[in-house]
């Protein structure tokens, strides 16, 4: 069983707290992604799991055993680094077999495992090349091969795709997912790219400032973010936040953005939001995908409004429109044929069935 457990894990560098107490339970065979902005502590946490950083406080357990004092080589883990960290003077075969060679594994076992891993990653014809002769994507595969060969309890990935160009990144993402489906090993993956997190993870851990903001499946995080940070972090383009007031009129709630714009709150939220009527520092969170062009058939909770468009960004399959509300730039996604044009007024539709109400003073989603 290869579950990983973190209890109140803290990391302190001199006086600075990089990680401030994390609790996390990772199940066997799970693919978990730690995501967050630079400096949030995700890499530090990963390195503590690996044993490359000492744990200042708390416990980390792998497979049920506390490993705080255990050196990396005895933790039965494998790691894929951002810069691949391939041994430059060894060829691919030697790179992949290095760990086994150190353990004095018999030659035929090494050979079998290396060839097997090479097949999974489609690098069999590269086995006698040196890292210098490989492209970025190939090097990344070799790095993964090195990890697979060791057959560890846990795979650790430290931003492995950050050094690849955009197209290659998309390709390698799929490769990693395929590998995980074939080699069902617990995986902890660190990235700053929320798209990678969403596409790869069974569960996503959003970190910020050394703490966990929220843990959940990609869908949970997308549809039910717990904090403003998570709401704004997940999803691209990011969620729009507009200052608003919550009003009550005749038993129904309205969210008022300004003198000209207000929308009725969906009925299923009435109970949840009523206690917050009149509360200051409220913000409406609405994703760009829920601001669209007007259409003939109106669904419940969809409301049209007119808006002067500032900037138009054609993306091919859709067009992003930017306009200003309450002094902020808001983004919407419209059909490319909807006739959006800069400096022209356009009729837009807001779908409030997916709205979020946020208390800006606490950052919590209500």
């Amino acid at each position: 069983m290869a579950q990983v457990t973190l209890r109140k894990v803290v990391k302190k560098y001199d006086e600075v707290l990089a990680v401030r107490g994390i609790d996390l339970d990772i199940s066997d065979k799970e693919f978990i992604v730690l995501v967050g902005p630079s400096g949030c502590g995700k890499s530090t946490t990963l390195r503590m799991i690996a044993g490359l950083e000492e744990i200042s406080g708390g416990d980390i357990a792998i497979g049920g055993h506390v490993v705080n004092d255990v050196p990396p080589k005895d933790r039965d883990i494998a790691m894929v680094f951002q810069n691949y960290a391939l041994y430059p003077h060894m060829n691919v075969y030697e790179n992949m077999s290095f760990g086994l060679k150190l353990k004095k594994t018999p030659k035929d076992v090494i050979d079998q495992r290396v060839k097997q891993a090479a097949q999974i990653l489609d690098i069999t014809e590269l086995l006698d090349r040196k890292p210098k002769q490989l492209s970025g994507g190939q090097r990344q595969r070799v790095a993964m091969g090195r990890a697979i060969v060791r057959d560890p309890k846990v795979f650790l990935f430290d931003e492995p795709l950050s050094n690849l160009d955009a197209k290659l990144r998309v390709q390698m993402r799929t490769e990693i997912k395929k590998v995980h489906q074939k080699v069902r090993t617990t995986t902890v993956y660190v990235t700053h790219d929320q798209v990678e997190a969403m596409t790869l993870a069974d569960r996503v851990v959003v970190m910020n400032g050394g703490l966990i903001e929220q843990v959940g499946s990609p869908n949970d995080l997308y549809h039910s973010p717990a904090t403003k940070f998570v709401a704004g972090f997940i999803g691209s383009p990011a969620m729009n936040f507009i200052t608003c007031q919550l009003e009550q009129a005749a038993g129904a709630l309205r969210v008022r953005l300004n003198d000209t714009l207000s929308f009725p709150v969906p009925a299923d939220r009435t109970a949840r939001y009523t206690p917050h009527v009149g509360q200051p520092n409220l913000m409406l969170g609405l994703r760009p995908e829920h601001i669209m062009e007007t259409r003939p058939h109106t669904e419940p909770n969809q409301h049209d409004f007119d808006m002067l468009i500032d900037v138009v960004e054609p993306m091919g399959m859709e067009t992003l429109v930017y306009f200003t509300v309450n002094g902020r730039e808001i983004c919407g996604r419209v059909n490319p044929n909807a006739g959006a044009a800069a400096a022209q007024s356009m009729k837009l539709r807001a779908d409030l069935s997916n709205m979020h109400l946020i208390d800006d003073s606490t950052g919590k989603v209500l």
Partner: protein
Amino acid sequence: MANAAIATGEPTRPKYGSMSRDRTWALRWSYFFLVLFAIFFLMPPIYMLITSLKTSAEISAATNPWWISNPTLQNYIDLLSQNHFLVFFRNSAIVSICVVIMTMLISVVAAFALARMKFWGSATLATGVFLTYLIPETLLFIPLFKMFAWVNEVLGIQLMNHWWTMIILYPTLTVPFATWIMIGYFASIPKELDEAALIDGATWMQTLTKIFIPVALPGIIAATIFTFTVAWAQFLYPLAFTTSTSELVLPVGIITTLIKGDVFNWGQIMTGALLGAAPPLIIYAFLMDYYIAGLTAGATKG
């Protein structure tokens, strides 16, 4: 890293050493050995200092050589008031400074040409510069000896037994290394800087003086320090080519005048040696980082 699996009674899980404890021990051992090596490396200069502060009587009394019972500055006073010592110092200083100036002028300009301006034979010349290392001074001093005699016969210039001859000779030892350092530094300056200067309308000379030299200043400082140290420490050439006391430079002067026959005035010798070692040491103390940077940059880029 602890890989000792301590065999205990339980078969379930091997015990591991603590990582942080390993790290502390590694650090302790490091400091321990560093102290040992520091003692080894610093012991002779310190001993020079100790001896220089002793009277002759104390030295010959053969008491504890590592301790000074009656410290005295007499050796320093004697040496510095002697005409000869000051002459040696002056000669060394003038020679070294002149050599530094000459070397830097030649090297910087040549390095710029070799690093940036490809011309016919530049690759051969660069290799040639490197090859001069294979021709040591211990080979050259003999033919030079004869060449000086020839120059005297034909041109009437007496090169033997003059301290200023050293100014002509030392650059052969300093220029190759200085050029090599500067080539390394110049080569590391991004070509875009040249191009920007070109677009801004600079001539090659302006590019050199206004851009390369300021940017490669650490390298220039390092090369200057090395040149000075090498020039100051020269022993073979002055030993071979200068004989009169007034023409000697410091290293040769100390050794030949203080060791008269079988009488060794160790107090004075050590004082002389220490004072002879002082200028490079002082420069080193203040500019240590440039020193080290120059050494390593030259090599890792080569």
